[in-house]
């Protein structure tokens, strides 16, 4: 299974849309694309996970690295539109309390 990574860069803001699976095979690609964005001073990085239906713990590792990098570079990381299975992983690991996760926009209306 593949992971497709779409990046839109604006002024002070980057949006990353992911499609597919994040696992041991695709996590390195994600890390390579995501980490540089968090290294831009004051950059707001938004990762859209609407189309990620599977993620394993290696994926969590990438987001932890990204979070640590935002702390060093005064940038921000925000995850949006997580599917339930993926969100569960963040909840179990307690990472939902240290990473900003926006779940409210699911479906668009509420």
């Amino acid at each position, binding site marked *: 299974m593949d992971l497709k990574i779409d990046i839109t860069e604006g002024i002070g803001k980057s949006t990353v849309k992911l499609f597919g699976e994040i696992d041991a095979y695709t996590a390195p690609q994600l890390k390579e694309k995501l980490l540089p964005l968090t290294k831009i001073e004051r950059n707001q990085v938004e990762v859209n996970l609407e189309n990620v239906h599977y993620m394993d*713990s290696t994926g969590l*590792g*990438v987001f*932890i690295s990204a979070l*640590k*990098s935002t702390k060093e570079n005064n940038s921000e990381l925000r995850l949006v539109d997580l599917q339930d299975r993926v969100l569960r992983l963040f909840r*179990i*690991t*307690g*990472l939902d309390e240290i990473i900003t996760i926006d779940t409210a926009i699911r479906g668009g209306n509420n």
Partner: protein
Amino acid sequence: METLNTDISNYRNLLKHYIEIRDEQSLYGAEQLSKMFIKNNVPPEEIVNLHIQALEELYPDVPEYFRHSMNFLVEIMITYGIAYQENYSLREEQSQLKSEIAVAANMQETLLATTKPETEDLDIGVVSAPANQMSGDYYHFLEGKDNSIGIAIADVIGKGIPAALCMSMIKYSMDSLPEATMSPKTILKNLNRVVERNVDAGMFITMFYIQYLPAKNKIRYASAGHEPGFYYNAETKTFEEIKAKGLVLGVSPDADYREYERTINKGDMVVLLTDGVTECKQGDRFIETEEVLEVIEQYSDLPAQEMVNKVYKHFERMQNFQFRDDFTLLVFKKEV
């Protein structure tokens, strides 16, 4: 030199035969010869040289330009020869690495070995199987002077050798903790500091630590982002999730862990697992937690070790004997 001489005459005869008759048999001979060259690690430029020599012996009047062209070919083959040599030594190195990893995997087993506590109180069963050679899953037992029993189950994120090395670190820090600090939340807090200081940014560990207190008929537990366990109530014959919230080890240096406590009755059972169990797949479909519990319940009358073995076999069959992740299942039943 002896072999080279036989090589030359062999090659010459074969070449002559081919030029004169061009039959299948000489092609077969060529294939055999080629295999022998590979086996004896003969570089490609040597083979071209052999060809020139054989040709000159067979046809002394080979045209000058042809002779030059063959020498040109020898030059071309030299770089190929070097690449071939590199490839050869890489293969050698690879097989050496493979056997070193096998030794390391063995050592890991010895280093991380833990003994099931001998107790009348609990019947403990555990099965742990790596997806690859080295496991990132781990379980450990600690026994207190007050007869309390500590059980840790952990999963290192990041696989293979780094994960395995990390496990040894966890084990030794756990063994060196003074007994007074054996409460689940203190253990996790201490380990978190060790991991945070010593591993790299993308790596972390999840752990569930549970302590059985025989004098009080209670269990105390805390979780560092680990997959929730299950509590089986023998009286109502139902499972419930053991909820415990806490951050994974190694992410934030000042994480605190909440400790939970509950009474455990005779016949009740606690199930701890890693996500290799809950992330089992049948075809493209993930197994739901309820199905895992159903399988466990199906075998719940068996002694704990037999039970976990049966459950493991069940999922092994379901996944065609190929786990995507390390698989660890630990169960204990209160006997008295």
